């Protein structure tokens, strides 16, 4: 997979040298940061043997809550409210999945629909404007040469990696995905840890939603359509197994990079966005096929 990324970068770079420019790199990384954050949460869900289809709609919900509370109370309160809204939705997902034992696909599908409904209801369907201009910094600002959203995404990657590879919770996530029944019989509180997985996913969506709201300096109930599917694509292209138990944050990083470079590269060589979708669809299937073929040979 790293080889693929290098090849793609070289190919696109040679077709359009603008690819390597600082502004382009900054742009791409900033644009991908939202998807990257979503994919981090999605990685937890998929590794644990589940999936989170609601993260796209959560972007809209978080955006609306963040904007409204920012107007009501203030900048920091708005940001906090947005992130908490994401976590809360994740908690609901977790309860439905872990306690009511509804399959994750169905539970998060329901949340996908409901969350957008809540976003539209809270906002009356209209965007919420009038947010303080300082907020724009979170979405458009720089920390040195790096865009702030990019730094947040990188921080998110580091944090997620540490959790998954070096904490008990992370180990249990893999165990649940690998063999849930054995996990129960090994003394793992599967219900509690499953809930935590979805809270984590919701919190990442919360951060992503706040950053996105900053980028467009308004609360928008229509944000995030289809993004949940791209977050799944990133995880899967990276090589994590869709049934769980295999994979990791490093792999998701690869998947996000592939999607980002592909999208940006194809834009720069003027390939229409319709064709881009075809390419991405083929890559998703192809990446999974290659991974499975490698496993079978073992």
């Amino acid at each position, binding site marked *: 997979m790293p080889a693929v990324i290098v090849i793609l970068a070289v190919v696109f770079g040679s077709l359009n040298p603008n690819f390597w420019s600082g502004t382009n790199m900054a742009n791409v990384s900033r644009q991908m940061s939202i998807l990257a954050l979503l994919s981090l949460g999605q990685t937890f869900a998929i590794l644990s043997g589940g999936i989170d289809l609601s993260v796209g709609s959560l972007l809209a919900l978080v955006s609306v809550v963040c904007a409204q509370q920012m107007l009501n109370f203030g900048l920091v309160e708005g940001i906090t409210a947005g992130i908490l809204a994401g976590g809360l939705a994740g908690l609901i997902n977790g309860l439905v999945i872990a306690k009511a034992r509804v399959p994750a696909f169905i539970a998060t599908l329901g949340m996908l629909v409901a969350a957008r409904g809540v976003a539209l209801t809270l906002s009356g369907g209209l965007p919420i404007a009038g947010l303080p201009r300082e907020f724009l910094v979170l979405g458009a600002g720089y920390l040195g040469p790096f865009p702030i959203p990019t730094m947040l995404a990188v921080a998110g990657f580091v944090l997620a990696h540490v959790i998954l590879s070096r904490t008990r919770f992370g180990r249990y996530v893999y165990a649940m995905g690998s063999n849930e029944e054995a996990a129960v019989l090994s003394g793992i509180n599967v219900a509690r840890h499953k809930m935590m997985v979805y809270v984590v996913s919701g919190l990442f969506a919360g951060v992503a939603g706040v950053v996105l709201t900053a980028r467009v300096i308004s609360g*928008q109930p229509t944000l995030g359509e289809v993004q949940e599917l791209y977050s799944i694509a990133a995880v899967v292209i990276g090589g994590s197994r869709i049934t769980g138990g295999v994979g990791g944050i490093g792999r998701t990083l690869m998947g996000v990079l592939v999607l980002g470079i592909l999208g940006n590269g194809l834009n720069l060589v003027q390939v229409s966005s319709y064709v881009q979708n075809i390419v991405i669809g083929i890559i998703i299937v192809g990446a999974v096929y290659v991974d499975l073929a490698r496993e079978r040979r073992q």
Partner: protein
Amino acid sequence: MKRLDRRCGALISLAAVVMLGCGRGTQPSNEVAPGTAAAPSAETGATTAPVTEYARPPKPSRQYRIGIAVPHLSNPHYVGQAYGYLDEAQNLGAQVTLLEAGGYQYLDKQVSQIEDLVASKVDAIILAAVSGPGTVGAVQDAVAAGIPVINVNVMTDSDKVVTRIRSDDDVIGRMHADFMGERLNGAGSIVMLRGAPGTSWAEIRGNAFKKRLAEKFPNIKILGEQYSQSTPADGLRLMEDFLQTYPEINGVYNGADTTAIGAAQAILAAGKQGKTVITATDFQVDTEKFIREGVISASVLQQTVTMGRWGVRAAINYLEKRPVPPVLLTAQELATKENVNGLNLENVRAPAGWTPPAR
């Protein structure tokens, strides 16, 4: 574990109450139309009166690169506008990159597209904004990078644009109201399909319509109004729901024509054609057909091709260091069954068979 469940349940209920409660308080009022705050309106008597004629400048000495971002190209309105952009650019020797966001709901995509245009160092950007407030940051960045932004058709809230080119949405709204009022003889019940939420055209037109109705035809009642994406499917769905809810609907206002087409189909299915007054904005082929058949009563034509041409002209003028008026208003015209044959559609539609380059 049961205690944890109860605590979770309490937490969720509390949060829901807080969210819903605090949310209500800041319901954005329909009276505050986004995009108008910065744009000087013709009625407030700005220092420079809005311009309604705009000639083609001489061909510039060098080839300029212009980036154009529009909400989508699946609507004949924007296809016409695209023709305006591209044809005019060809005449003025400019190279054009045309990008579409895929729909009014893809704000993130449009912001990314503006950023990409800035990164590829175009000389000027023409923007038909997907959202008024949402594009402020991106426009600011473009201007800060030294790239002028010409705002066409759908307004951004940013006050850093070079000029705003649009139909006079106030006039459009009033034309709708006048037609509707007269056709209904001053009395009746109507519904409104306003169009895409958060866009300047949906807001200004709809508000002007309501204001005019209240002034001139106070006996006409507005039963309900809905926003939606500009597609016939949305119009159809909303109209069907309205027909179910209200037994008697005498008129339907449409901010665009795509929803009108859907509404017309709903009216046809209910057998109420001819008895319900449908007004629309724009003039795609299906709209024309319905007007000829008498299902859609009237439509306000926008000179969308002209908007495209003027956008490019304004960009070239600015780049050639000539002064550019801050507001340019294109003309509008009311089309009905009576005058449909005599209309000049040169500025309203792209030539038959023309399609924008795949993007």
